[in-house]
């Protein structure tokens, strides 16, 4: 077993890149005596410090666990590969930032899964901790947990994780750690502890379920093998966001994180019903925080952090009922104190001109818009309820108010896409440029910059597109080349795209089953880690892993699923029903739009949860 030693760590720190990633000691980091806590939780973000420290979920749960006087939560991030290698060479185990305790000494090691391409980092972190990777090989030591949006299809990680938490974590996390505490006190065995945990709503213990497969490789059945395990795992829904716990202080990193600022979660959930968007389906229904609560949280956080910037977070901030009131109040309070307020992920159909003008009083950052597709037909298929008129009105308003940098996000490879839809992206970009020149010279800011970014569509579980096959690599490359040619003809547009290989791997895991765990293990063995970073993506290592496991990535990424096929995540009740998703899939193929359910319930299934989605 590797032992931790501060001396050896100091030695490594003098040789690695960005050593401050590993030293902790930041403002507001919780310092509780490790030995006195009844339950210790190592909160692991399977990516670099800078990425992890930008994430809101970790801040919320870190706060919630540490609020319990008997529990302690400390942070762990994936060491950058230079550090990971140095730690192996020095026999130094992975440790938490706060008390520098090796992970294997915690009661719980919990991972948040924000994107599929962090899965190898989960294995890397367990291995660096001397914790056996496979759940079946662990007889003692910490219980390995995972949560976050990717936990909605937990199967690819099922061989490695003991307990998944599915849904909103605020209440579930407290129940989980309280249950662990009781089990520990009672001296329960590992098996009995898992049984007790499996009874908590939202908890999934993969060891208690068994899949079987048809001859064609599709799933034949999936059923519990232990009486403690429910046949259907129902996702947790937090009913009252306004009174839910929210951190009064954020840990303030020394080295700059990607998002290093106050974040106010103004609302959770989205009712737009974009058919490609997993978050839009998973976080239903919409729950808002009141302006009063948000102003109080802003004040507490400002006093506790000293940040110069504040941002509003939600899936579609433009839909927040009291947006204008909130933005006005924030700019009025904080403009004086030189704190800027920014509104990310604004949706072009809901930009409030007044808010734009308010926000701009403090700071003018680039405007980001996501039309997602180039033609109205394609936008109807994906149910992106935005017209070209909306878009042009929004950018014209922005140009008139002094913006000159616009980023446009598109997806390629969407269901039913044709060349015409690609050409439409070019037209839209041209129209945005024309809109800039219609604003009189004196009124518009100088230096127009338009960037078009095209990502590759990845079909995700619990979306109407969960049945759709992803375009294969040659098709995606061809489309990217075509789009490149089209945009080259539009003067003044920058074009960038995502690695199609990465999107393909993402697709295999997004809709993978348990057998993808073998591929994951083999890929990690082949040296794959930090896959989300272009410089580390080892595509050959991945292809070799598929080959060695005798698994065809196309089976997961490119195959269209039928109406009757049992999907690996069907045993989870995520709120939206399979019937609703199928109906939406059919409508998509007919190009029929489904209106925002704020204007009338579309029967997605959330109403089955008591107290959820009361009609306004």
């Amino acid at each position, binding site marked *: 077993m590797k032992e931790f030693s501060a001396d050896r760590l*100091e030695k490594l720190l003098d040789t690695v890149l960005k050593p401050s990633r590993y030293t902790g000691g930041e403002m507001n980091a919780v310092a509780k005596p490790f030995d006195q806590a009844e339950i210790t939780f190592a909160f692991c973000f399977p990516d670099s410090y800078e990425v992890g420290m930008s994430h809101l979920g970790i801040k919320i749960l870190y706060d919630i666990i540490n609020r319990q006087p008997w529990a302690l939560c400390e942070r762990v991030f994936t060491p950058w590969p230079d550090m990971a290698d140095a730690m192996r060479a020095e026999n130094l185990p992975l440790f938490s930032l706060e008390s520098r305790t090796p992970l294997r000494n915690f009661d719980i090691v919990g991972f948040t899964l924000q994107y599929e391409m962090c899965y190898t980092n989960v294995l890397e972190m367990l291995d660096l901790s001397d914790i056996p990777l496979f759940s079946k090989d662990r007889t003692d030591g910490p219980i390995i947990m995972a949560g976050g949006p990717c936990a909605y299809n937990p199967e690819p990680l099922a061989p490695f994780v003991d307990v998944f938490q599915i849904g909103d974590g605020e209440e579930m996390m407290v129940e989980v750690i309280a249950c662990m505490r009781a089990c520990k006190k009672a001296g329960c065995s590992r098996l009995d502890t898992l049984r007790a945990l499996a009874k908590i709503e939202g908890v999934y213990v993969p060891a208690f379920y068994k899949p079987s497969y048809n001859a064609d490789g599709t799933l034949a059945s999936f059923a519990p093998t232990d009486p403690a395990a429910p046949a259907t795992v129902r996702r947790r829904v937090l009913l009252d966001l306004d009174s839910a716990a929210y951190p009064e202080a954020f840990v*303030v990193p020394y080295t700059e994180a990607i998002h290093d600022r106050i974040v106010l979660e103004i609302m959770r959930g989205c009712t737009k019903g974009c058919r490609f968007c997993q978050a839009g389906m998973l976080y239903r229904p919409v729950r808002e925080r009141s302006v009063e609560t948000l102003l109080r949280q802003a004040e507490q956080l400002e006093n506790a952090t000293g940040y110069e910037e504040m941002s509003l977070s939600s899936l579609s901030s433009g839909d927040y009922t009291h947006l204008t009131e909130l933005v006005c109040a924030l700019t009025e309070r904080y403009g004086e104190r030189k704190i800027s307020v920014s509104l990310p992920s604004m949706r072009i159909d809901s930009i409030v001109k007044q808010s734009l003008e308010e926000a701009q009083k403090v700071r003018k950052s680039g405007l980001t818009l996501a039309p997602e597709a180039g033609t109205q037909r394609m936008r109807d298929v994906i149910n992106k309820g935005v017209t070209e008129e909306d878009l042009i009105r929004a950018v014209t308003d922005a140009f008139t108010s002094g913006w000159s940098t616009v980023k446009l996000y598109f997806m390629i490879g969407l269901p039913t896409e044709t060349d015409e839809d690609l050409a439409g992206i070019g037209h839209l970009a041209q129209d945005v440029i024309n809109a800039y020149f219609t604003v009189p010279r004196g009124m518009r800011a100088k230096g127009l910059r338009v960037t078009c970014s095209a990502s590759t569509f990845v079909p995700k579980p619990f979306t109407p597109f969960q049945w759709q096959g992803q375009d294969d690599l040659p098709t995606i490359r061809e489309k990217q080349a075509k789009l490149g040619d089209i945009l080259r003809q539009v003067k003044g547009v920058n074009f960038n795209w995502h690695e199609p290989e990465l999107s393909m791997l993402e697709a295999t895991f997004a809709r993978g089953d348990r057998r993808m765990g073998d591929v994951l293990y083999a890929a990690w063995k082949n040296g794959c880690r930090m896959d989300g970073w272009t410089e580390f993506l080892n595509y050959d290592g991945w292809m070799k892993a598929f080959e060695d496991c005798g698994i065809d990535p196309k089976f997961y990424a490119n195959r269209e699923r039928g109406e009757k096929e049992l999907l690996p995540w069907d045993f989870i009740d995520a709120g939206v029903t399979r019937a609703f998703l199928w109906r939406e899939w059919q409508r998509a193929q007919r190009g029929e739009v489904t209106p925002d359910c704020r204007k009338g319930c579309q029967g997605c299934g959330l109403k089955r949860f008591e107290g959820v989605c009361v009609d306004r």
Partner: protein
Amino acid sequence: MKMLVIFEKTDRVRHVGHLDLMRAMQRALRRSGVPIAFSKGFNPHLLLNFAAPLPVGTSGRREIMEVSLSEEISETEFKEKLRAALPPELPCVAVRAVDDRHPAPMALLFAASYQITIPEGAAPLLAAVPSFMAKDSIMALRKTKSGEKLTDIRPMIYDLQVTGDHQLSCTLALCEAATCKPELLLDALSAEAGLEARPRALCVRTQLLGRDFTPLELL
């Protein structure tokens, strides 16, 4: 008025670079609620001056920054407020109120004392100290803004002593006209000891000094 803040950068955060440290201090000052003065102009920032940036990897026991204030405040109140707002790894040791005409700390700086710990392979280095200090001139390659320059660093070494089995302490020039970094001293000392490369060392800047080796904060 201005306030001189004497603070520590602990060993744990020794890798925090100067820009990051400055940002941490700015945020601490914002949190503290002390009446800080902002610069005028388009992009206002806090008026904050450090005596001397600490290199990445070096900790400091009595570092100095000067904060310009927009209103009068007592030393006690300032210290209390700042102390509450600083991260535990950047504790405030003392403060001293000075008037606006007091020269910037950087202008008063003359030298600094360091404590250097050499965990492994210290013996030959420590043994070479007497002969090293007996020299009249020590030529070393010094990095300057215009490139590398062969300089006599002997006049910049005011003091060098063995203070333990693995430890040296020294006082080196640190001002605009001449600066000798501890690494440079170690390189030269390693050469004197016949070592190919300098061994790994942990440096702590223990005191910033003004003329006549008076602690800078007292000037």
